[in-house]
């Protein structure tokens, strides 16, 4: 009885962990140097990106190797529709601003919207395939988007384009949010992370989320029960794409620049790496993975800490990944469980 009680109180505490984390993050700017604050921002953006993929991989069991496409499209939309740069096709030009003030809500909607739209297109086609094919097809569609931005004039070609005016939220003439200001952007990103986490937590506890989990375990059984699984998977794909677009919007505004490499398969690979590093199957794992991946790379590339070895970070990172996947197939989250299991046993 006592043990049971302890377990429930532990899980109650566990439920508070994300909120605690958020509170810590909100208090951080007071103590951070500008660089570490940037690092936190970068991790937060990647965490959103990783969370969005977690819905596909962890919840629904769809391994996409082309998730960076939506991330990149979101980023490009944020910059292109600010106006004044790139050369949008006439059909889309009316959506762009004049290069002056950049309305936050409109740009956010366009970023998320276009990412979702492309996800709808890619999902509609790629979800006809399964397994290895699905992985490859998502990769190919991401490459397609990559080459559109790389080879055509739409987004300034291979060098990419810059953002000249950062988005602003104005209501009745007063500026509520100005993303050009460090603190505004920090809390806005934090808000976006909380929003993403919240949305996905809601999805996971909803009927949609349960159906997606069912599809992951046995799609055939779900169809036999009467689920139009294609529609469910497509919904997951579009939600994931839209949230990746949100992360893209943030990265576009954060860097003030976008370029085709945001859509490259290396980026898709990196985000997959994050969620597996953290542990597939939990939102916390995705966030943890984003933190771990960013810091690991930071560590391996740091000459101050590793000396000349930093020049060979590919080797150290590669070997670490191999060791990680070999020893911790369930990710960092799994490590915690394993330790907990060991102490009980």
């Amino acid at each position, binding site marked *: 009885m006592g043990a049971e009680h302890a377990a429930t109180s532990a899980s109650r505490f566990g439920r508070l962990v994300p909120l605690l984390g958020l509170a810590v993050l909100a208090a951080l700017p007071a103590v951070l140097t500008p660089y570490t604050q940037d690092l936190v921002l970068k991790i937060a953006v990647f965490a959103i990106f990783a969370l969005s993929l977690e819905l596909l991989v962890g919840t629904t069991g769809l391994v996409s190797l082309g998730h960076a496409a939506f991330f990149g499209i979101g980023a490009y939309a944020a910059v292109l529709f600010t106006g004044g740069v790139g050369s949008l096709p006439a059909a889309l030009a009316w959506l762009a601003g004049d290069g002056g003030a950049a309305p936050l809500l409109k740009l956010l909607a366009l970023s998320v919207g276009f990412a979702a739209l492309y996800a709808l297109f890619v999902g509609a086609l790629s979800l006809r395939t399964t397994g290895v094919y699905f992985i490859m097809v998502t990769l190919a569609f991401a490459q397609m988007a990559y080459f559109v931005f790389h080879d055509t004039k739409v987004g300034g070609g291979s060098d990419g384009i810059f953002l000249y005016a950062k988005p602003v939220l104005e209501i009745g003439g007063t500026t509520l949010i100005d993303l050009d200001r460090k603190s505004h952007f920090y809390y806005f990103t934090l808000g976006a992370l909380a929003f993403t986490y919240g949305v996905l937590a809601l999805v996971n506890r*909803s009927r949609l989320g349960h159906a997606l989990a*069912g599809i992951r375990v046995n799609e055939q*059984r779900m169809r*036999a029960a009467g689920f139009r699984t294609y529609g469910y998977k497509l919904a997951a794909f579009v939600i994931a794409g839209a949230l990746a677009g949100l992360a893209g919007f943030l990265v576009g505004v954060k860097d003030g620049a976008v370029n085709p490499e945001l859509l490259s398969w290396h980026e898709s690979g990196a985000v997959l790496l994050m969620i597996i590093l953290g542990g597939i199957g939990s939102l916390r794992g995705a966030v943890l993975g984003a933190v771990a991946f960013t810091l690991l790379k930071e560590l391996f590339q740091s000459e101050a800490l590793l000396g000349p070895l930093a020049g060979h970070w590919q080797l150290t990172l590669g070997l670490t990944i191999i060791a990680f996947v070999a020893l911790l197939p369930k990710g960092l989250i799994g490590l915690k469980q394993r330790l907990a299991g060991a102490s009980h046993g």
Partner: protein
Amino acid sequence: MAEALLRSNLLTRRFGGLTAVNGVSLAFHIGEVHAVIGTNGAGKSTLINMLSGEIPASGGSIHFDGQDITDWPQPKRARAGLGRSYQRTTIFPEFSVLENCRLCAQAALPRAWAVWESAQRCEASLAVAREALAAAGLADVAQRQAGTLSHGGKRQLEIAMCLATKPRVLLLDEPLAGMGAEETDRMLALLASLKATHAVLLVEHDMDAVFRIADRITVMVNGEVIASDVPAAIRSNRDVQTAYLGEGH
């Protein structure tokens, strides 16, 4: 006799050069357990797969409740009232027994996109799921993790999940496979109780059980129906004896 609830007409399925099911016409009625027997590779599973919509037919048609459903996809058939179970256990082992059934019951509910509503508090699906569990005799273990059930328990859950979709036809693919005598008795009692409100198609290898419960037996050999009649007539059918029963007896 009343109009059949589910009827196949010259149903055929070819895989490349192989004809797995050839011109099968059968009718299934509420209040009747209709068993389909035959050797391995006779086309029984293919028949179930075609009726449930898992694989498309190469020829022929399927009618359900007066409608031509030959071209309907599987989920649509399932929601219309065609429930099936699988030869291999296909429960969701990580979920609770209740959740397994609740999930299946959820398929029929509207507003799947309402992500702010908690699945575990979805009363509509919970009620159906509890009903199905009670009918299948699993009410006591509703909170257990499904993967921890005994083999027989899992087979019962399989039926319960099928019931949770509120079907009118039950397409059961070897529900007795691997069961002990006691478990078999329990399952047969369950089937007998379901027969009143459902049309039941039973594919089964356990001949004793088939002859105990079936109201009608169809024998398939090499994808074709060689006999379809009441059990007593099948037992004395010479073709069946030579083609099928002869092997075992």
